[in-house]
Protein backbone atom coordinates (compact mmCIF):
# COMPACT_ATOMS: atom_id res chain seq x y z
CA UNK A 1 0.00 0.00 0.00
CA UNK A 2 1.37 3.39 -0.90
CA UNK A 3 1.75 6.21 1.56
CA UNK A 4 -1.47 7.98 2.56
CA UNK A 5 -1.05 11.53 1.29
CA UNK A 6 -4.12 12.67 3.22
CA UNK A 7 -2.73 11.56 6.58
CA UNK A 8 -2.52 14.46 9.07
CA UNK A 9 0.34 14.27 11.57
CA UNK A 10 0.14 15.86 15.04
CA UNK A 11 2.76 18.53 15.78
CA UNK A 12 3.44 20.40 19.00
CA UNK A 13 2.82 24.13 19.20
CA UNK A 14 5.92 25.71 20.75
CA UNK A 15 4.80 29.31 20.92
CA UNK A 16 1.94 31.60 19.92
CA UNK A 17 2.68 35.22 19.03
CA UNK A 18 -0.23 37.67 18.93
CA UNK A 19 0.39 39.82 15.86
CA UNK A 20 -2.99 41.55 15.85
CA UNK A 21 -6.35 40.88 17.45
CA UNK A 22 -7.26 38.44 14.66
CA UNK A 23 -3.87 37.23 13.50
CA UNK A 24 -1.63 34.97 15.54
CA UNK A 25 1.64 33.34 14.56
CA UNK A 26 1.91 29.70 15.65
CA UNK A 27 5.43 28.33 16.01
CA UNK A 28 5.21 24.58 15.45
CA UNK A 29 7.78 21.87 16.06
CA UNK A 30 8.72 20.04 12.85
CA UNK A 31 11.77 18.83 11.00
CA UNK A 32 10.11 19.33 7.63
CA UNK A 33 12.34 20.92 5.01
CA UNK A 34 10.37 23.91 3.81
CA UNK A 35 11.10 26.24 0.90
CA UNK A 36 10.13 29.91 0.87
CA UNK A 37 6.54 30.25 -0.33
CA UNK A 38 5.29 26.74 0.43
CA UNK A 39 2.22 25.85 2.47
CA UNK A 40 0.90 23.12 4.76
CA UNK A 41 -2.54 21.54 4.96
CA UNK A 42 -3.34 22.35 8.57
CA UNK A 43 -6.16 20.68 10.45
CA UNK A 44 -7.85 19.94 13.71
CA UNK A 45 -9.59 16.57 13.86
CA UNK A 46 -13.40 16.88 13.91
CA UNK A 47 -13.14 20.57 12.91
CA UNK A 48 -11.58 20.74 9.44
CA UNK A 49 -8.56 21.27 7.26
CA UNK A 50 -7.19 24.11 5.12
CA UNK A 51 -4.04 25.43 3.44
CA UNK A 52 -1.83 27.83 5.43
CA UNK A 53 1.39 29.34 4.09
CA UNK A 54 4.63 29.26 6.05
CA UNK A 55 5.65 32.67 7.36
CA UNK A 56 9.01 31.67 8.84
CA UNK A 57 11.11 28.61 9.53
CA UNK A 58 14.03 27.39 11.56
CA UNK A 59 15.93 24.16 12.16
CA UNK A 60 13.15 22.35 13.97
CA UNK A 61 10.15 24.62 13.61
CA UNK A 62 7.93 26.50 11.20
CA UNK A 63 5.74 29.49 11.83
CA UNK A 64 2.25 29.77 10.41
CA UNK A 65 0.54 33.13 10.65
CA UNK A 66 -3.18 32.52 10.79
CA UNK A 67 -6.11 34.90 10.54
CA UNK A 68 -9.16 34.04 12.59
CA UNK A 69 -11.68 33.95 9.84
CA UNK A 70 -13.73 30.74 9.93
CA UNK A 71 -14.64 27.50 11.65
CA UNK A 72 -11.16 25.95 11.61
CA UNK A 73 -9.17 29.07 12.45
CA UNK A 74 -11.59 30.03 15.23
CA UNK A 75 -10.81 26.71 16.87
CA UNK A 76 -7.05 27.01 16.22
CA UNK A 77 -7.13 30.30 18.13
CA UNK A 78 -8.25 28.40 21.23
CA UNK A 79 -5.05 26.31 21.23
CA UNK A 80 -2.26 26.93 23.74
CA UNK A 81 1.50 26.30 23.57
CA UNK A 82 2.05 22.58 24.16
CA UNK A 83 -1.17 21.64 22.34
CA UNK A 84 -1.09 19.61 19.16
CA UNK A 85 -2.03 20.84 15.71
CA UNK A 86 -2.26 18.51 12.71
CA UNK A 87 -0.34 19.12 9.51
CA UNK A 88 0.65 17.49 6.25
CA UNK A 89 3.04 18.97 3.73
CA UNK A 90 4.82 21.15 2.86
CA UNK A 91 3.17 21.50 -0.55
CA UNK A 92 3.54 23.65 -3.62
CA UNK A 93 6.48 25.26 -5.35
CA UNK A 94 8.47 28.17 -3.95
CA UNK A 95 10.00 31.50 -4.81
CA UNK A 96 13.09 30.99 -7.02
CA UNK A 97 15.44 32.22 -4.30
CA UNK A 98 18.59 31.11 -6.10
CA UNK A 99 17.56 33.28 -9.05
CA UNK A 100 17.11 36.24 -6.71
CA UNK A 101 20.63 35.99 -5.27
CA UNK A 102 23.17 38.64 -6.20
CA UNK A 103 20.48 40.78 -7.85
CA UNK A 104 18.15 43.52 -6.73
CA UNK A 105 14.84 42.36 -5.28
CA UNK A 106 11.60 44.27 -4.84
CA UNK A 107 8.99 42.76 -2.54
CA UNK A 108 5.50 44.26 -2.54
CA UNK A 109 3.08 42.78 -0.03
CA UNK A 110 -0.37 43.72 1.19
CA UNK A 111 -2.04 42.69 4.45
CA UNK A 112 -1.78 38.96 5.17
CA UNK A 113 0.19 38.74 1.92
CA UNK A 114 3.18 39.71 4.05
CA UNK A 115 3.09 36.22 5.64
CA UNK A 116 4.12 34.16 2.56
CA UNK A 117 7.05 36.53 1.84
CA UNK A 118 8.22 36.92 5.43
CA UNK A 119 10.53 33.87 5.40
CA UNK A 120 12.07 35.10 2.14
CA UNK A 121 12.66 38.54 3.65
CA UNK A 122 14.09 37.07 6.84
CA UNK A 123 16.46 34.95 4.78
CA UNK A 124 17.93 37.96 3.02
CA UNK A 125 17.92 39.93 6.26
CA UNK A 126 20.14 37.25 7.74
CA UNK A 127 22.22 36.90 4.55
CA UNK A 128 22.52 40.52 3.34
CA UNK A 129 25.61 39.67 1.29
CA UNK A 130 23.52 37.35 -0.91
CA UNK A 131 21.39 40.16 -2.32
CA UNK A 132 22.48 43.31 -4.14
CA UNK A 133 19.64 45.39 -2.74
CA UNK A 134 16.16 44.75 -1.39
CA UNK A 135 13.22 47.13 -1.61
CA UNK A 136 10.23 46.18 0.51
CA UNK A 137 6.84 47.83 0.22
CA UNK A 138 4.33 46.61 2.83
CA UNK A 139 0.78 47.88 3.02
CA UNK A 140 -1.78 47.38 5.77
CA UNK A 141 -5.34 48.56 6.18
CA UNK A 142 -4.82 50.42 9.43
CA UNK A 143 -2.58 50.55 12.50
CA UNK A 144 -4.23 47.64 14.26
CA UNK A 145 -3.73 45.31 11.29
CA UNK A 146 0.05 45.74 11.10
CA UNK A 147 1.76 42.34 11.19
CA UNK A 148 5.30 41.38 12.28
CA UNK A 149 6.09 44.77 13.88
CA UNK A 150 9.48 43.62 15.17
CA UNK A 151 10.52 42.24 11.78
CA UNK A 152 9.34 45.38 10.01
CA UNK A 153 11.53 47.46 12.32
CA UNK A 154 14.54 45.20 11.79
CA UNK A 155 14.08 45.27 8.02
CA UNK A 156 14.40 49.05 8.03
CA UNK A 157 18.09 48.71 8.90
CA UNK A 158 19.09 46.49 5.98
CA UNK A 159 16.39 46.98 3.32
CA UNK A 160 14.93 50.02 1.62
CA UNK A 161 11.49 49.94 3.16
CA UNK A 162 8.26 51.72 2.43
CA UNK A 163 5.49 50.87 4.89
CA UNK A 164 2.08 52.29 4.25
CA UNK A 165 -1.42 52.33 5.72
CA UNK A 166 -4.49 52.72 3.51
CA UNK A 167 -5.76 55.91 5.19
CA UNK A 168 -4.28 56.58 8.62
CA UNK A 169 -1.14 58.61 9.25
CA UNK A 170 1.21 57.25 11.91
CA UNK A 171 4.94 57.56 12.51
CA UNK A 172 7.08 55.47 10.21
CA UNK A 173 4.26 54.79 7.78
CA UNK A 174 3.22 56.44 4.55
CA UNK A 175 -0.41 56.82 3.55
CA UNK A 176 -2.07 55.14 0.57
CA UNK A 177 -2.22 51.79 -1.16
CA UNK A 178 1.01 49.96 -2.04
CA UNK A 179 0.40 50.68 -5.73
CA UNK A 180 0.82 54.40 -5.07
CA UNK A 181 4.39 53.86 -3.83
CA UNK A 182 5.70 51.59 -6.59
CA UNK A 183 6.88 54.55 -8.65
CA UNK A 184 9.38 55.32 -5.88
CA UNK A 185 11.37 52.17 -6.68
CA UNK A 186 14.43 53.07 -8.79
CA UNK A 187 13.88 50.32 -11.35
CA UNK A 188 16.05 52.22 -13.87
CA UNK A 189 19.08 51.98 -11.59
CA UNK A 190 18.85 48.18 -11.28
CA UNK A 191 21.10 46.07 -13.43
CA UNK A 192 19.20 42.85 -12.88
CA UNK A 193 16.22 42.44 -10.60
CA UNK A 194 13.06 40.56 -9.64
CA UNK A 195 9.76 41.73 -8.20
CA UNK A 196 7.64 39.67 -5.79
CA UNK A 197 4.02 40.69 -5.31
CA UNK A 198 1.76 39.00 -2.76
CA UNK A 199 -1.62 40.10 -1.46
CA UNK A 200 -5.31 39.99 -2.25
CA UNK A 201 -6.08 39.28 -5.96
CA UNK A 202 -7.10 42.88 -6.70
CA UNK A 203 -3.95 44.26 -5.07
CA UNK A 204 -1.71 41.85 -7.00
CA UNK A 205 -3.46 42.73 -10.24
CA UNK A 206 -3.00 46.47 -9.89
CA UNK A 207 0.46 46.28 -8.34
CA UNK A 208 1.63 44.19 -11.30
CA UNK A 209 0.10 46.66 -13.77
CA UNK A 210 1.82 49.53 -11.95
CA UNK A 211 5.14 47.71 -12.16
CA UNK A 212 4.67 47.13 -15.88
CA UNK A 213 3.85 50.83 -16.24
CA UNK A 214 7.18 51.57 -14.55
CA UNK A 215 9.03 49.53 -17.12
CA UNK A 216 9.32 46.20 -15.32
CA UNK A 217 9.45 43.25 -17.72
CA UNK A 218 6.69 40.67 -17.23
CA UNK A 219 9.08 37.78 -16.60
CA UNK A 220 10.68 39.58 -13.65
CA UNK A 221 7.43 39.58 -11.67
CA UNK A 222 6.45 36.73 -9.29
CA UNK A 223 3.07 36.32 -7.62
CA UNK A 224 1.71 33.92 -5.02
CA UNK A 225 -1.90 32.71 -5.38
CA UNK A 226 -4.34 31.83 -2.66
CA UNK A 227 -7.11 29.34 -3.41
CA UNK A 228 -9.52 27.01 -1.66
CA UNK A 229 -7.89 23.60 -1.41
CA UNK A 230 -9.15 20.38 0.10
CA UNK A 231 -6.12 18.22 -0.66
CA UNK A 232 -3.03 20.23 -1.66
CA UNK A 233 -1.91 17.40 -3.96
CA UNK A 234 -3.84 17.79 -7.21
CA UNK A 235 -6.87 15.60 -6.49
CA UNK A 236 -9.72 17.68 -5.08
CA UNK A 237 -9.99 20.09 -8.02
CA UNK A 238 -10.79 23.28 -6.09
CA UNK A 239 -7.67 25.26 -7.03
CA UNK A 240 -7.66 24.39 -10.73
CA UNK A 241 -7.54 27.29 -13.19
CA UNK A 242 -7.67 26.03 -16.78
CA UNK A 243 -5.12 23.20 -16.95
CA UNK A 244 -3.14 24.54 -14.00
CA UNK A 245 -3.39 23.30 -10.43
CA UNK A 246 -2.34 26.07 -8.02
CA UNK A 247 -1.33 23.46 -5.41
CA UNK A 248 1.00 21.67 -7.83
CA UNK A 249 2.38 24.29 -10.24
CA UNK A 250 1.93 27.14 -7.74
CA UNK A 251 1.25 28.85 -5.46
CA UNK A 252 4.14 30.93 -6.86
CA UNK A 253 3.76 31.90 -10.51
CA UNK A 254 5.79 34.04 -12.82
CA UNK A 255 3.65 36.86 -14.21
CA UNK A 256 3.98 35.51 -17.77
CA UNK A 257 2.03 32.46 -16.55
CA UNK A 258 -0.12 34.19 -13.93
CA UNK A 259 -1.57 36.72 -16.39
CA UNK A 260 -3.07 33.80 -18.32
CA UNK A 261 -4.63 32.15 -15.29
CA UNK A 262 -8.13 33.45 -15.81
CA UNK A 263 -10.91 32.44 -13.46
Amino acid at each position, binding site marked *: *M*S*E*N*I*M*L*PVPHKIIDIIHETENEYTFRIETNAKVKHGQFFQV*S*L*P*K*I*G*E*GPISVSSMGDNWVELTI*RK*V*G*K*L*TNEIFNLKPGDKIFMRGPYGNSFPVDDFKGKDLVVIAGGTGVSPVRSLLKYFYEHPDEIHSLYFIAGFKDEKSILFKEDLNNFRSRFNTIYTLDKDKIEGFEVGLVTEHIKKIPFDSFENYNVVIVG*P*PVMMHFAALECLKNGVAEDKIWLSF*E*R*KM*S*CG*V*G*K*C*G*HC*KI*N*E*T*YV*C*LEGPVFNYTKAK*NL*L*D
Partner: protein
Amino acid sequence: MSYCVNIKRMNEILKELQKEYKVYAPVRFEKRGRYSDTDLIRYAEINSIEDVVYDEKSDFSPKEVIYPITQALFYFTEYEYMESKVDDKKILIFARPCDINGFRRLDTIFLKNGGTEDIYYKRLREKVKFILMECKEGGWDSCFCVSMGSNKTDDYSLAVRFGDDKILVEIKDDEFTNLFADEREVEFTPEFVTSNPTKVNIPEIDSHELLEKIYDLDMWKSYNSRCISCGACTAVCITCSCFNTLDVIYTENGKVGERRRVQASCMHEDFTTMAGGLSFRKTAGERMRFRTLHKIYDYKLRFKDEHMCVGCGRCDERCPELISFPATINRLYDEVEKLKKTETTNKDIR
Protein backbone atom coordinates in the same frame (compact mmCIF):
# COMPACT_ATOMS: atom_id res chain seq x y z
CA MET B 1 -13.62 -17.94 -25.65
CA SER B 2 -17.34 -17.25 -25.65
CA TYR B 3 -20.26 -19.18 -24.26
CA CYS B 4 -24.02 -19.26 -24.26
CA VAL B 5 -25.33 -19.51 -20.70
CA ASN B 6 -28.93 -19.79 -19.53
CA ILE B 7 -30.13 -17.46 -16.80
CA LYS B 8 -30.42 -20.19 -14.17
CA ARG B 9 -26.85 -21.30 -14.74
CA MET B 10 -25.67 -17.68 -14.87
CA ASN B 11 -27.14 -17.17 -11.40
CA GLU B 12 -25.22 -20.19 -10.15
CA ILE B 13 -22.05 -18.71 -11.64
CA LEU B 14 -22.89 -15.39 -9.98
CA LYS B 15 -23.20 -17.10 -6.60
CA GLU B 16 -19.83 -18.73 -7.18
CA LEU B 17 -18.29 -15.35 -8.14
CA GLN B 18 -19.75 -13.66 -5.08
CA LYS B 19 -17.63 -15.82 -2.81
CA GLU B 20 -14.72 -13.66 -3.86
CA TYR B 21 -16.29 -10.65 -5.49
CA LYS B 22 -18.79 -7.96 -4.74
CA VAL B 23 -20.72 -7.72 -7.99
CA TYR B 24 -22.18 -4.33 -8.94
CA ALA B 25 -24.54 -3.46 -11.76
CA PRO B 26 -27.18 -0.89 -12.64
CA VAL B 27 -30.19 -1.82 -10.51
CA ARG B 28 -33.77 -0.58 -10.58
CA PHE B 29 -35.07 1.28 -7.53
CA GLU B 30 -38.80 1.34 -8.09
CA LYS B 31 -40.64 4.65 -7.67
CA ARG B 32 -37.43 6.33 -6.55
CA GLY B 33 -37.07 8.34 -9.77
CA ARG B 34 -37.14 12.12 -9.84
CA TYR B 35 -40.67 12.33 -11.24
CA SER B 36 -43.72 10.61 -9.79
CA ASP B 37 -44.09 6.98 -10.74
CA THR B 38 -40.63 6.80 -12.30
CA ASP B 39 -37.82 4.50 -11.28
CA LEU B 40 -34.24 5.27 -10.44
CA ILE B 41 -31.47 3.20 -11.95
CA ARG B 42 -28.18 3.34 -10.16
CA TYR B 43 -25.33 1.05 -9.27
CA ALA B 44 -25.72 -1.40 -6.42
CA GLU B 45 -24.71 -4.93 -5.48
CA ILE B 46 -26.86 -7.49 -7.22
CA ASN B 47 -28.44 -10.63 -5.82
CA SER B 48 -29.35 -12.26 -9.11
CA ILE B 49 -28.58 -11.71 -12.76
CA GLU B 50 -32.18 -10.55 -13.27
CA ASP B 51 -31.33 -7.49 -11.13
CA VAL B 52 -29.11 -6.12 -13.87
CA VAL B 53 -30.89 -3.38 -15.81
CA TYR B 54 -29.23 -3.89 -19.18
CA ASP B 55 -31.74 -2.29 -21.52
CA GLU B 56 -31.81 1.23 -20.05
CA LYS B 57 -29.17 3.79 -19.28
CA SER B 58 -28.40 4.16 -15.59
CA ASP B 59 -29.17 7.57 -14.09
CA PHE B 60 -25.96 7.54 -12.07
CA SER B 61 -22.52 6.32 -13.11
CA PRO B 62 -20.58 3.39 -11.67
CA LYS B 63 -17.96 5.74 -10.21
CA GLU B 64 -19.83 5.57 -6.90
CA VAL B 65 -18.72 1.97 -6.46
CA ILE B 66 -15.12 3.01 -5.90
CA TYR B 67 -15.54 6.76 -5.37
CA PRO B 68 -18.57 7.04 -3.09
CA ILE B 69 -20.48 10.29 -2.69
CA THR B 70 -19.35 10.35 0.92
CA GLN B 71 -16.54 8.28 2.32
CA ALA B 72 -14.78 8.25 5.69
CA LEU B 73 -11.05 8.97 5.47
CA PHE B 74 -10.23 8.87 9.18
CA TYR B 75 -12.07 8.07 12.38
CA PHE B 76 -11.10 10.26 15.31
CA THR B 77 -11.46 9.12 18.87
CA GLU B 78 -10.39 11.10 21.92
CA TYR B 79 -6.63 10.79 21.52
CA GLU B 80 -6.24 8.56 18.49
CA TYR B 81 -7.28 8.39 14.92
CA MET B 82 -7.37 5.60 12.39
CA GLU B 83 -7.67 5.24 8.66
CA SER B 84 -10.95 3.90 7.36
CA LYS B 85 -10.88 0.40 5.88
CA VAL B 86 -12.53 -1.36 2.97
CA ASP B 87 -13.91 -4.85 2.47
CA ASP B 88 -11.43 -7.55 1.48
CA LYS B 89 -13.55 -8.77 -1.40
CA LYS B 90 -12.64 -7.96 -4.97
CA ILE B 91 -15.05 -6.01 -7.19
CA LEU B 92 -16.80 -6.83 -10.46
CA ILE B 93 -18.69 -4.04 -12.21
CA PHE B 94 -21.15 -4.43 -15.09
CA ALA B 95 -20.20 -1.35 -17.12
CA ARG B 96 -20.73 0.29 -20.51
CA PRO B 97 -17.76 1.14 -22.73
CA CYS B 98 -18.09 4.89 -22.01
CA ASP B 99 -17.92 4.27 -18.28
CA ILE B 100 -14.92 1.94 -18.53
CA ASN B 101 -13.20 4.70 -20.51
CA GLY B 102 -14.38 7.14 -17.86
CA PHE B 103 -12.60 5.21 -15.12
CA ARG B 104 -9.35 5.83 -16.99
CA ARG B 105 -9.94 9.58 -16.55
CA LEU B 106 -10.56 9.09 -12.83
CA ASP B 107 -7.35 7.04 -12.67
CA THR B 108 -5.48 9.95 -14.24
CA ILE B 109 -6.65 12.38 -11.57
CA PHE B 110 -6.44 10.11 -8.52
CA LEU B 111 -3.39 8.01 -9.40
CA LYS B 112 -1.26 10.22 -11.66
CA ASN B 113 -1.90 13.94 -11.31
CA GLY B 114 0.79 15.59 -9.23
CA GLY B 115 2.83 12.38 -9.18
CA THR B 116 0.99 11.02 -6.13
CA GLU B 117 -1.56 8.26 -5.62
CA ASP B 118 -4.70 8.69 -3.59
CA ILE B 119 -4.93 5.54 -1.51
CA TYR B 120 -8.67 5.85 -0.87
CA TYR B 121 -9.25 5.57 -4.60
CA LYS B 122 -6.45 3.11 -5.26
CA ARG B 123 -7.44 0.59 -2.58
CA LEU B 124 -10.81 0.05 -4.30
CA ARG B 125 -9.71 0.65 -7.89
CA GLU B 126 -7.10 -2.10 -7.80
CA LYS B 127 -9.82 -4.60 -6.84
CA VAL B 128 -11.94 -3.82 -9.90
CA LYS B 129 -12.56 -5.98 -12.95
CA PHE B 130 -15.12 -5.03 -15.56
CA ILE B 131 -17.93 -6.99 -17.14
CA LEU B 132 -18.63 -5.10 -20.34
CA MET B 133 -22.31 -4.61 -21.13
CA GLU B 134 -23.28 -3.99 -24.72
CA CYS B 135 -25.36 -0.91 -25.44
CA LYS B 136 -28.47 -0.90 -27.59
CA GLU B 137 -27.91 0.06 -31.19
CA GLY B 138 -26.94 3.72 -31.47
CA GLY B 139 -26.97 4.04 -27.69
CA TRP B 140 -29.64 6.15 -25.97
CA ASP B 141 -30.96 9.57 -27.01
CA SER B 142 -28.43 11.62 -25.09
CA CYS B 143 -25.36 9.43 -25.78
CA PHE B 144 -22.55 11.00 -27.79
CA CYS B 145 -19.78 8.50 -27.04
CA VAL B 146 -18.84 8.12 -30.70
CA SER B 147 -18.03 11.83 -31.01
CA MET B 148 -15.87 11.55 -27.89
CA GLY B 149 -14.14 8.38 -29.10
CA SER B 150 -15.18 6.45 -26.01
CA ASN B 151 -17.65 4.06 -27.62
CA LYS B 152 -15.17 1.16 -27.64
CA THR B 153 -12.92 -0.53 -25.12
CA ASP B 154 -10.97 -3.73 -24.70
CA ASP B 155 -10.44 -3.14 -20.99
CA TYR B 156 -12.75 -5.86 -19.65
CA SER B 157 -12.55 -9.36 -18.18
CA LEU B 158 -15.96 -10.53 -19.36
CA ALA B 159 -18.36 -9.15 -21.94
CA VAL B 160 -22.05 -9.95 -21.98
CA ARG B 161 -25.01 -9.73 -24.32
CA PHE B 162 -28.35 -10.18 -22.57
CA GLY B 163 -31.09 -12.22 -24.24
CA ASP B 164 -34.54 -13.14 -22.93
CA ASP B 165 -33.57 -16.44 -21.36
CA LYS B 166 -29.85 -16.68 -22.05
CA ILE B 167 -26.72 -14.62 -21.95
CA LEU B 168 -23.76 -14.63 -24.29
CA VAL B 169 -20.49 -14.26 -22.44
CA GLU B 170 -17.03 -13.58 -23.79
CA ILE B 171 -14.18 -14.41 -21.42
CA LYS B 172 -10.96 -12.50 -21.81
CA ASP B 173 -9.62 -13.12 -18.33
CA ASP B 174 -8.40 -16.69 -17.64
CA GLU B 175 -9.38 -16.39 -14.01
CA PHE B 176 -13.01 -16.93 -15.01
CA THR B 177 -12.59 -19.69 -17.62
CA ASN B 178 -13.25 -22.59 -15.24
CA LEU B 179 -16.64 -21.28 -14.26
CA PHE B 180 -17.84 -21.66 -17.83
CA ALA B 181 -16.15 -25.00 -18.64
CA ASP B 182 -19.45 -26.91 -19.07
CA GLU B 183 -21.20 -24.27 -21.13
CA ARG B 184 -21.91 -24.31 -24.85
CA GLU B 185 -19.21 -22.56 -26.80
CA VAL B 186 -20.41 -19.94 -29.30
CA GLU B 187 -19.02 -17.24 -31.54
CA PHE B 188 -19.50 -13.99 -29.66
CA THR B 189 -17.62 -10.77 -29.29
CA PRO B 190 -19.36 -7.63 -28.07
CA GLU B 191 -20.55 -5.09 -30.59
CA PHE B 192 -19.95 -1.44 -29.99
CA VAL B 193 -22.09 1.52 -30.92
CA THR B 194 -20.65 3.14 -34.04
CA SER B 195 -23.04 6.05 -34.51
CA ASN B 196 -25.19 8.05 -32.06
CA PRO B 197 -28.20 10.19 -32.90
CA THR B 198 -26.51 12.95 -30.88
CA LYS B 199 -23.21 14.19 -32.26
CA VAL B 200 -20.88 16.90 -31.05
CA ASN B 201 -18.18 18.95 -32.69
CA ILE B 202 -15.32 19.73 -30.36
CA PRO B 203 -13.98 23.25 -30.87
CA GLU B 204 -10.29 23.42 -31.47
CA ILE B 205 -8.86 26.03 -29.12
CA ASP B 206 -5.30 26.57 -30.26
CA SER B 207 -4.24 29.86 -28.70
CA HIS B 208 -4.58 31.80 -25.49
CA GLU B 209 -5.98 34.76 -27.43
CA LEU B 210 -8.82 32.56 -28.63
CA LEU B 211 -9.38 31.23 -25.11
CA GLU B 212 -9.71 34.78 -23.79
CA LYS B 213 -12.32 35.53 -26.43
CA ILE B 214 -14.16 32.35 -25.46
CA TYR B 215 -14.25 33.59 -21.87
CA ASP B 216 -15.97 36.74 -23.10
CA LEU B 217 -18.65 34.98 -25.15
CA ASP B 218 -22.19 36.08 -24.43
CA MET B 219 -23.37 32.48 -24.59
CA TRP B 220 -22.16 31.85 -21.03
CA LYS B 221 -24.38 34.63 -19.69
CA SER B 222 -27.46 32.79 -20.92
CA TYR B 223 -26.78 30.14 -18.27
CA ASN B 224 -26.92 32.73 -15.47
CA SER B 225 -30.70 32.55 -15.36
CA ARG B 226 -31.09 29.00 -16.65
CA CYS B 227 -28.58 27.07 -14.53
CA ILE B 228 -29.54 26.77 -10.86
CA SER B 229 -26.04 25.63 -9.79
CA CYS B 230 -27.40 22.42 -8.29
CA GLY B 231 -24.50 20.23 -9.40
CA ALA B 232 -26.72 17.37 -10.62
CA CYS B 233 -24.65 17.24 -13.82
CA THR B 234 -21.39 16.65 -11.98
CA ALA B 235 -22.93 14.16 -9.54
CA VAL B 236 -23.91 11.80 -12.35
CA CYS B 237 -20.77 12.37 -14.44
CA ILE B 238 -18.48 9.34 -14.66
CA THR B 239 -15.43 11.61 -14.87
CA CYS B 240 -16.17 14.34 -12.29
CA SER B 241 -13.75 13.75 -9.44
CA CYS B 242 -13.74 16.90 -7.28
CA PHE B 243 -14.29 16.63 -3.54
CA ASN B 244 -14.39 18.49 -0.25
CA THR B 245 -13.08 17.18 3.01
CA LEU B 246 -15.56 17.55 5.80
CA ASP B 247 -14.98 16.87 9.48
CA VAL B 248 -17.97 15.79 11.51
CA ILE B 249 -18.57 15.22 15.21
CA TYR B 250 -20.94 12.43 16.19
CA THR B 251 -23.94 13.93 17.94
CA GLU B 252 -24.05 11.15 20.54
CA ASN B 253 -20.45 11.76 21.60
CA GLY B 254 -18.75 15.03 20.82
CA LYS B 255 -15.30 13.59 21.45
CA VAL B 256 -15.57 11.22 18.54
CA GLY B 257 -15.91 12.00 14.85
CA GLU B 258 -14.54 11.50 11.40
CA ARG B 259 -12.95 13.22 8.44
CA ARG B 260 -14.97 12.56 5.31
CA ARG B 261 -14.47 13.03 1.65
CA VAL B 262 -17.62 14.33 0.01
CA GLN B 263 -18.02 14.73 -3.73
CA ALA B 264 -18.03 18.42 -4.66
CA SER B 265 -19.22 20.28 -7.72
CA CYS B 266 -17.58 23.13 -9.63
CA MET B 267 -21.15 24.20 -10.43
CA HIS B 268 -21.88 25.00 -6.78
CA GLU B 269 -21.62 28.65 -5.76
CA ASP B 270 -19.20 27.91 -2.93
CA PHE B 271 -16.79 25.67 -4.85
CA THR B 272 -13.99 28.26 -4.73
CA THR B 273 -15.06 30.14 -1.59
CA MET B 274 -12.27 30.47 0.96
CA ALA B 275 -12.64 31.14 4.66
CA GLY B 276 -13.31 34.86 4.84
CA GLY B 277 -15.59 34.79 1.82
CA LEU B 278 -13.30 35.47 -1.13
CA SER B 279 -14.43 33.46 -4.15
CA PHE B 280 -13.95 33.16 -7.89
CA ARG B 281 -16.37 32.39 -10.74
CA LYS B 282 -19.32 34.00 -9.04
CA THR B 283 -21.96 33.46 -11.74
CA ALA B 284 -23.58 30.26 -13.00
CA GLY B 285 -22.43 31.18 -16.51
CA GLU B 286 -18.79 31.37 -15.46
CA ARG B 287 -19.10 28.02 -13.71
CA MET B 288 -20.74 26.50 -16.79
CA ARG B 289 -17.80 27.79 -18.84
CA PHE B 290 -15.35 26.29 -16.36
CA ARG B 291 -16.99 22.85 -16.47
CA THR B 292 -17.41 22.87 -20.25
CA LEU B 293 -13.80 23.82 -20.91
CA HIS B 294 -12.54 21.30 -18.38
CA LYS B 295 -14.45 18.50 -20.10
CA ILE B 296 -13.52 19.32 -23.68
CA TYR B 297 -10.41 21.49 -23.54
CA ASP B 298 -8.09 21.86 -20.58
CA TYR B 299 -8.05 18.27 -19.27
CA LYS B 300 -6.66 17.21 -22.64
CA LEU B 301 -4.31 20.19 -22.67
CA ARG B 302 -2.83 18.93 -19.40
CA PHE B 303 -2.89 15.15 -19.86
CA LYS B 304 -2.59 15.04 -23.69
CA ASP B 305 -4.28 11.76 -24.65
CA GLU B 306 -8.00 12.35 -24.53
CA HIS B 307 -10.77 14.71 -23.52
CA MET B 308 -12.27 14.27 -20.09
CA CYS B 309 -15.87 13.99 -21.31
CA VAL B 310 -16.76 10.48 -22.53
CA GLY B 311 -20.15 11.45 -23.93
CA CYS B 312 -22.27 9.31 -21.60
CA GLY B 313 -24.91 12.05 -21.71
CA ARG B 314 -26.06 11.55 -18.12
CA CYS B 315 -25.61 15.26 -17.31
CA ASP B 316 -27.99 16.02 -20.14
CA GLU B 317 -30.63 13.61 -18.81
CA ARG B 318 -30.23 14.74 -15.24
CA CYS B 319 -30.31 18.53 -15.53
CA PRO B 320 -33.53 19.81 -13.90
CA GLU B 321 -33.33 22.86 -16.15
CA LEU B 322 -32.98 20.74 -19.29
CA ILE B 323 -29.58 22.20 -20.16
CA SER B 324 -28.06 19.89 -22.73
CA PHE B 325 -24.31 19.44 -22.51
CA PRO B 326 -23.92 18.20 -26.11
CA ALA B 327 -25.93 21.24 -27.24
CA THR B 328 -23.61 23.45 -25.16
CA ILE B 329 -20.54 21.90 -26.80
CA ASN B 330 -22.02 22.38 -30.26
CA ARG B 331 -22.99 25.94 -29.44
CA LEU B 332 -19.46 26.64 -28.30
CA TYR B 333 -18.13 25.05 -31.48
CA ASP B 334 -20.27 27.39 -33.60
CA GLU B 335 -19.18 30.41 -31.56
CA VAL B 336 -15.52 29.45 -31.86
CA GLU B 337 -15.89 28.99 -35.62
CA LYS B 338 -17.40 32.49 -35.77
CA LEU B 339 -14.50 33.91 -33.77
CA LYS B 340 -12.00 32.21 -36.07
CA LYS B 341 -13.81 33.53 -39.13
CA THR B 342 -13.79 37.07 -37.75
CA GLU B 343 -10.10 36.71 -37.00
CA THR B 344 -9.36 35.60 -40.58
CA THR B 345 -11.52 38.38 -42.04
CA ASN B 346 -9.76 40.95 -39.86
CA LYS B 347 -6.41 39.66 -41.04
CA ASP B 348 -7.53 39.98 -44.66
CA ILE B 349 -8.60 43.57 -44.07
CA ARG B 350 -5.30 44.43 -42.45
